[in-house]
């Protein structure tokens, strides 16, 4: 297992939230699953990222009941968040492609 690549946590959170609103643990698991366990998320960094994204207006947090009647904070991606994700994804693609080329050159 490895730590996330610097600066990608925000993008990954936004990406995870495009499918459905989720709580913190859900996002952690989702990132771990999709990366097939390559990346782990530090809960502290996660909460910090939530606060940052929320204040930037990219996500919205709200308290909801979970399936098993527990209170949990669910996060939804906002329109502004989707726009930001689009830009970041494009940027990311470009960078990955560049690195690919460099590595296989």
């Amino acid at each position, binding site marked *: 297992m490895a730590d996330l690549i610097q600066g990608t946590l925000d993008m990954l959170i936004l990406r995870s939230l495009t499918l459905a609103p989720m709580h*913190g643990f859900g996002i952690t698991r989702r990132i771990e699953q999709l990366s097939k366990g390559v990346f782990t998320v530090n*809960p502290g960094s996660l909460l*910090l990222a939530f606060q940052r994204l929320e*204040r930037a207006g990219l996500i919205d947090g709200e308290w909801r009941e979970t399936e098993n009647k*527990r209170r949990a904070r669910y996060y939804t991606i906002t329109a502004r968040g989707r726009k930001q994700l689009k830009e970041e994804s494009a940027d990311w693609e470009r960078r990955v492609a560049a690195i690919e080329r460099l590595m296989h050159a």
Partner: protein
Amino acid sequence: MPTLRAISRGLRALFHRDETNRELDDELAHYIELSAAEKERAGMSRAAALHAARAEVGSAESVKEEVRSGGWESRVDTVRRDIVLAVRSLRRTPTFTAIALLTLALGVGANTTMFSVVNAVMLRPLPYRAPNDLVLVWTNDVQRGLPREATARSTILDWRERTRTLSDVAYFTTQRAAALGNDPSSPRERTRSALSSGNLFAVLGADPVKGRVITAEDESARANVAVISYAFWQRHFSGAPDVLGKTLHLDDDARGGQPLTVIGVMPRDFYFPDKLTDVWMPATTYWRFDRESSERFPSWARRWTAVARLARGRTVHDASTELAGIGKGLATQYVSTVPDFPGFAASVVPVLDFVTGPGLQSSLWILFAAVTMVLLIACANVANLLIARSATRQREFVLRRALGADRARIVGQLVVESLTLAVTGSAIGLFIATWSTKLLAGVIANYVPRADEITVDARVLVFTAATAIAVGLIFGILPALQSSTADASDALREGARATGAVHTRRLRSALVLAECAIAMVLLAGAGLLMKSLDRLRAVDPGFAPRGVLTVRLEFPAEPPPTAAELTQTSATAQARARARTERAEQVLASVASLAGVSAAGYSDDLFVNGQGNESITIPGRDESTIPAGELNEAAASADFFTLMHVRLRAGRYPTRDDAAQKIRALWTGVITDMPLAEKERHAVFEPVVVNEAFARRYFPNESAVGKRFCIDPTNKTYWYEIVGVVGDMHRQGLEKAPIPEYYGPYIPSAPGRADLLVRTSVDPASLAAAITERVNKAWPGVTVVSALPAEALLGGFSAQRALQAWLLAAFALLAVLLAAVGIFGLVQYAVSERTREIGVRVALGASPGEVMSLVIRDGMKMPALGLAVGVAAAFIGTRALGRFLFNVTPTDPVTFIAVALGLLIVAAVACYVPGRWAAKTDPMTALRK
């Protein structure tokens, strides 16, 4: 809006801290729960799963801390915690805190008080549009040295026409007036009225609160209209809302008693040219307006003062230069026909300088500088205390650094501590200032213009707030930087205080040195001013003001002459003058018969505030050989000089018969077209007594008695004959050298005013009521305006000087006191540092005297150095006092030596106290430490 959201979240986090905390807790708990549940599903036991989940999350507190420190509010939060910490730590050391707060409160309180005066007198804008562009323009009588003389209207109109540096020029003149109520028996209301050009209010840029102002149309139509002040509206019309259109009767000479119609009321804060003027009316309503406007040379035509607005981008200097040029042109164009014409030179004075008067502004800045120096000393003292305090807290800081606090964090906390101290101290200071400002404003009300405007307003509050922060940073940063440099390994070692201590002592020594230097400068300044006061007190006024009551009287106007009387104008006027003189004598007799009164007499104003602008001609002498300079005409009744204890130098004192002679002289017809010698042969002379200054100037090498002189030699020549020479009286205060004067016999005029002088054998003020009653009974209709001891009136001339001297002395004493506290603190610290060493010395046989001299010798080093620096600074700095010194040079060696000695003694006492403690050191206890 993301920014708004960030702010609102931040604020929520700040103010609903518990809730935010709980939410974070909830979120974390939920996370752990889910994580544990998953692990359980994977086969772990409940307990093991929870444990693993928690381990995964790490310390909940550190997560929360991390989240919290992510937002902007965390910095505010840190400051808040620092403040709480600061308050707690300050309360742990109540003595330190109390001394620091008291020092700061005194410094800031004094500063705020002084600033509120500076603010009211100089900074608050005058009630005109763009007041800094307004100037007054006077004729500058260069020959007599009188820069503020009135000007003829024709000359002002020439200025207006030719100037490019002034955008518009208005003019005005003011005079005493009495407002008559509709009820003739009600007392006359004394006020002043101003004749104003049609554009005066336009130039001032002042709008009325009611109605309209005087316009050019009013001027050309000679409309009998009046604009009144707010105060006059309230006083005379009881604030009646329908005041516009009402009739106002003014008893003044200027307008022949025509009633006025009120057309406007000015705002409450408006005044022009002074706060005594209540009524403004068109200049053209003056009954001699046309006659006087046609001339420019005779003194009776020179009545007006110009007020003008500088053109855009022009300065006072530009206007002065330009008017000097215009004046030269006028001088070649119009050749004076009058010998005493002062010429066409002009002085341009910013309206603020006119309102505050000469000297006051620099005097206030000096006092403000002084009080700022006191505040700096206070800061140095508090910084000293803080350094001493942080020395004892060294281990606390080292520990905190060892635990991970970075240097910025510790400096930050110390600065917050200083600011907390500064803000609290300043708040107390501000509280003191609200009281002291009122007190000071009351004391100076009669001597400082605009003193009634002194309040603690928004500008003062901003000033105090800024001062508080500046002060906190000044005394906070040095000690904070110093204590945070502490090296952990060094300081944690027991007894390893030496390196830091040397550094600390050097800093503290420098602060004490600076304090002593500043105190020396202030003391020198205060000493010089006090010595000036003393020199002033030593001046012989030339009369004995103690025990004399000065009763100012105003005589009513007389009814107009009847038709029969009009056929005999001269005879009627003489008869009336004799009757008035008779009445005045009766008043004297009635007052003199009061118990406690030893003598009574009259003069015109006993104390002269105006300028001596008379000029005379002496027969047989060429005009050009008659010396120029200030000259004043005065009047005195027969007993005046004996009653005032004025010495007779030659000839005789005036007698009662002189008054009758003067009445004859005044109403003797004059023949205008004959040579001067011929005129002298036909003349009736007014007998006058002159003062020594007069005799010295005009008859330096001969006896003045029996000599004759005249005024207006080319036209309606009027003659005087000198019958006596008396000593000089300081009638313009002790500071101004007496100017030449000639005293004619006193004859009351109607309407007119006089000073009734009463010599008493008891406290003069105690007789004021009884004298007023006698006056009113002996001559109904006469108003007693005031009754004040002559001594107090004479003192009033130097009141601003005395005030300045005492204030500066108070600040200097405060500075010395604070410096002494600083010295004491430093020496005491040094002694405590050297307790062991002193113990050893005592153990080796040093006597208490030796120990004491050791401490004092050491302790006096900084004060002595500071003194030297201070003397050098004072040598330069006291030059700023130049114009406020009286018969003292700015580097008066006696004063310098005296105050330096004084400061040394204070410093020695401050060293002596800790020295005594050191001398009592018990070697056993000292060594065991």
